[in-house]
């Protein structure tokens, strides 16, 4: 095969051979499906030597380090065309050879324009800098919603939005300026959430679709470091329960079915119609942490009445993972209510440190369970959220280096079939991710930009004594 390609600056490439494989590129955008409104997916050729790329008839020369940068206007044109076929041509032993072409498929399902996450060293106890950030997916803009250099270097975590609504947000801050912060249509409130009747302050949150309630777990959580295990860290609960917080009355309530000494209940989530409270529950083991590998969580639900904040009398088993020798964490239901996506792993609940963690789906119409084929990797695939329309899922994965989590996005069709996920695009992603010494933690879509000012959040955290949460 011989082909002559003209490239910019008057250069000519005479392609004299082919390589019968796909090129190695980072990020791996080969044959991924992207939303039409995504920012350009710049990538780098992982091999060495000169290279050029042909994409939908356009020839592009690589920059330093094999980097291919796509102009915004060109990218938008490609997105309109519905698919981009790319062929990488490299110079090997003095001759130009082309790899097998690959496609970037374009979905007309637009992705929520913003998503938020915490950037934190993937560490064990220490941090100096961390923060909750938001990123515009249509370009490369990143902004801090709040960073801890403004709040005494404390820990902040568990930011959660009501169905992707950027005006309804909850997160926790710890240590000196600690408290749970609720952002509700521009109003910012700090809560003191430890009560005499609960084992801890409120932890893992999930908003009720009405915006009137937030389900939380309360956990006595510990963390240990393995000497020699593929999972470096073990985070485990010595006790945990699930409660529901009323945003208007500042009261919490629970059911005996969600707060039992014999079981560890955690990771609550509401169904999109608000009538069910799902959560994970494991039978308590005699000795922790000695028996940490024996703790396996199943998926349960209990009816919830938003009219009067009461619970049903029956606990329904949704997925008996322990019976199959597995454990479940992070249940999240698609906005149409059909699929529940969860993380499945061998034991315990903190799946982000378990290399066997994979994303699975429960079809809530028949309670059938299946892995998300094509999405999971050999390494950790864990915390996930659905986009507002349920067409996209973002999740955390350690697939690239085994330690630093990065956000991956996948398209999910109405039958629950997911496409090959793609990594959050960056300008020069290879360099960016290599330099980044932090993990992307708790990725969550929002339908718009979070506009509450940092100063407002800081002032509330620093200056407000907070409202005490009471028990109903």
């Amino acid at each position, binding site marked *: 095969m011989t082909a002559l390609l003209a490239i910019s600056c008057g250069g000519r490439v005479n392609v004299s051979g082919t390589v019968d494989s796909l090129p190695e590129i980072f990020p791996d955008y080969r044959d991924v499906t992207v939303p039409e409104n995504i920012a350009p997916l710049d990538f780098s050729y992982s091999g060495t030597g000169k290279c050029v790329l042909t994409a939908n008839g356009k020839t592009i020369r690589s920059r330093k380090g094999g980097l291919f940068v796509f102009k915004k206007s060109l990218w938008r044109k490609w997105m309109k065309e519905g698919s981009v076929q790319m062929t990488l041509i490299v110079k090997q032993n003095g001759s130009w050879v082309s790899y097998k072409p690959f496609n970037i498929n374009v979905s007309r399902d637009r992705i929520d324009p913003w998503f938020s996450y915490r950037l934190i060293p993937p560490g064990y106890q220490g941090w100096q800098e961390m923060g909750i950030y938001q990123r515009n997916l249509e370009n490369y803009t990143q902004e801090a919603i709040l960073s801890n250099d403004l709040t005494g270097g404390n820990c902040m975590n568990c930011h959660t939005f009501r169905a992707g609504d950027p005006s309804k947000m909850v997160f926790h801050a710890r240590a000196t300026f600690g408290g749970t912060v609720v952002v509700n249509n521009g109003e910012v409130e700090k809560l003191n959430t430890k009560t005499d009747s609960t084992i801890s302050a409120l932890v893992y949150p999930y908003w009720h679709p009405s915006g009137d309630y937030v389900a939380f777990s309360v956990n006595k959580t510990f963390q240990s470091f393995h*000497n020699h295990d593929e999972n470096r860290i073990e985070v485990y609960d010595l006790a945990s329960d699930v409660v529901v917080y009323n945003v208007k009355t500042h009261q919490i309530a629970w059911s005996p079915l969600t707060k039992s000494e014999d079981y560890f209940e955690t990771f609550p989530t509401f169904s999109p119609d608000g009538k069910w409270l799902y959560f994970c529950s494991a039978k308590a083991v005699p000795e922790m942490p000695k028996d940490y590998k024996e703790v396996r969580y199943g998926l349960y639900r209990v009816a919830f009445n938003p009219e009067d904040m009461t619970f049903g009398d029956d606990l329904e088993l949704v997925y008996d993972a322990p019976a199959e020798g597995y454990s479940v964490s992070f249940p999240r239901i698609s906005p149409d209510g059909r699929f529940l996506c969860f993380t499945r792993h061998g034991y315990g609940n903190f799946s982000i440190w378990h290399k066997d963690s994979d994303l699975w789906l429960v079809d809530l119409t028949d309670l059938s369970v299946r892995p998300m084929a094509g999405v999971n990797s050999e390494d950790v695939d864990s915390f996930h959220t659905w986009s507002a329309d349920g067409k996209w899922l973002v999740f955390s994965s350690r697939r690239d280096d085994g330690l630093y989590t990065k956000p991956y996005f996948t398209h999910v069709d109405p039958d629950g079939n997911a496409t090959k996920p793609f990594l959050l695009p960056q300008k020069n992603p290879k360099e960016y991710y290599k330099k980044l010494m932090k993990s992307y933690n708790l990725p969550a879509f929002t339908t718009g930009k979070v506009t509450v000012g940092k100063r407002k959040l800081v002032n509330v955290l620093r200056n407000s004594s907070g409202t005490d949460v009471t028990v109903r």
Partner: protein
Amino acid sequence: MNPFALAYREQQQLFLFDKTYIAGTLLKVGGLATLLARFFVQFFWNPAVAMTLTLLLLALSAFMTWVYVKQSWKDWALIPLCVFPSVIIGASLSDNSLHFDYLTAILLVQACLLVYKAIKTRKVFGALALTVILYFTAGSAAVIFPVCIFARDLWKKEFSPSLASLVAVAACGVIAYLSSGVPTWSEAFTPAAYYDIDAELPLVHWAGWISIPVVIMACRLVNATHLVKWATFAAGVLLLIPAFIHAGKYEKKIDKEQPRLAYIFEHYTCNEDWDGLIKACRKAPWLPRTANYLNMALAWKGELAENLLKYDQRGADGLVMTTSDRAVDVAQAHIMFAMGNVAAAQDVAFNTVSSLNGFCPAMLKINAQVELMRGCYEVADKYISLLEKAPHYRAWAKEQRGFLYNDQAVESDPLLGNGRRNLQAENHFIMYTNPMTELFPILDANPTDKRTLEYGLCYLLLTKDLNSVKHFIEDYYSAPDSPELPRIAQEAMVFYSEYSRNMEGVVPFGFDWCYEHGVQPDVVKRFEEYKKAAVAGATALRKFRGTYWYYLVHTEI
């Protein structure tokens, strides 16, 4: 100023020749001052250089003050007065919670004062522009700028520039606060911006700020009143006396409050100067943390068991003193690494890297090495790439790069190969309840690790648990290819053999067992001499200092 305390600053940051790092730092309020500080501090790995460089910068500060106040180059008499603020600033820098940006921010202020002095027309505009630039490059130290302009212009009765600058600095502070460029009003307008995050700023650090305009005003007063030059010079020198007394007293105060010894130990440890570390530890080897460093140095030299009792040991805490807070304890990371407990070392090292201001180079090195041991090359590559951007660590990092994706090279490297074998130990949580519970499985996985072996043996010897020492010797020193039994262990076994035969409840064993397990006949012979000396009394016992018998019987733990 303590050169080792200055040197320790180098371990709390990592200056990178990297455009993202530089741009990211410059974009923050006071970013240029931070960047300059980090640039200078990167050379502080050598305490002499740290001291010299700091003194040069303080001299530069004094010189700039003089250039600002002098009316002609003949105004030499003002020099002692101009040195005064530098002495005060230098004293403040004794406090390691005060960042080096404190000094570089002041230098930027002084540079702007010189620019302002050179402006002949449109001084109000000049003062305004300089103030804004200064605020966003130097941070809250810009507050000094209008005061210094005022202090100089007062004599010309020219108030507009200082007033404009004052308004500008107030506006910049408000903007910085409202836009969350600074966390609090204090960080917007006071030296708290250069102090540890959310720690209370000691009042003394205001002195450096206040002294500059005061000295400027004093110099202008001298010029205006035409005082005799020698009298001015003498007054300036006299004024320096209380300044130096303050510096000395403050240094002593800080000495008591901050871990100066640890700074010295860390310096030698980070530079792997084991002889220097041993020398530094000799002064008080009985203090547990000092003994930790001392014994670590002996271990790296391969002399732990051989020379352990040459120093005043007071129990097993001297080998490793663990604390519950593993977040920022660099010593623990170094010691665990030396012990061969690389997972525990990484646990602490990772926390420390993330906890300190920027990156701690020594901890980053441990992390890179442990990732190489683990075979997690992508993560090791991240750390190595980072260190390659720091000139002082570039050569080391490039050397480590050779191990990436090369299992054979890692396994044949004495340090990395050993660490990889140690990681094969049976899994357990790192609890720190007892270091030995973590060393036994490591030794089972890699009995050839001499440092771990000696740490284990010495731990049991220092706890005086002779029965466990005996079992340890049976388990780890009995194979044909086992290393020679250290002399102190031989002494322990000879003693225990005799003891076992005379005490009820102890399984007796004779010298035959000792000989079979590596005890040399001369040790048995010397033990007989020791027994006679023990009966004779203290004077006779003196020559047995350094023996295990002396430690066992005469050292309280």
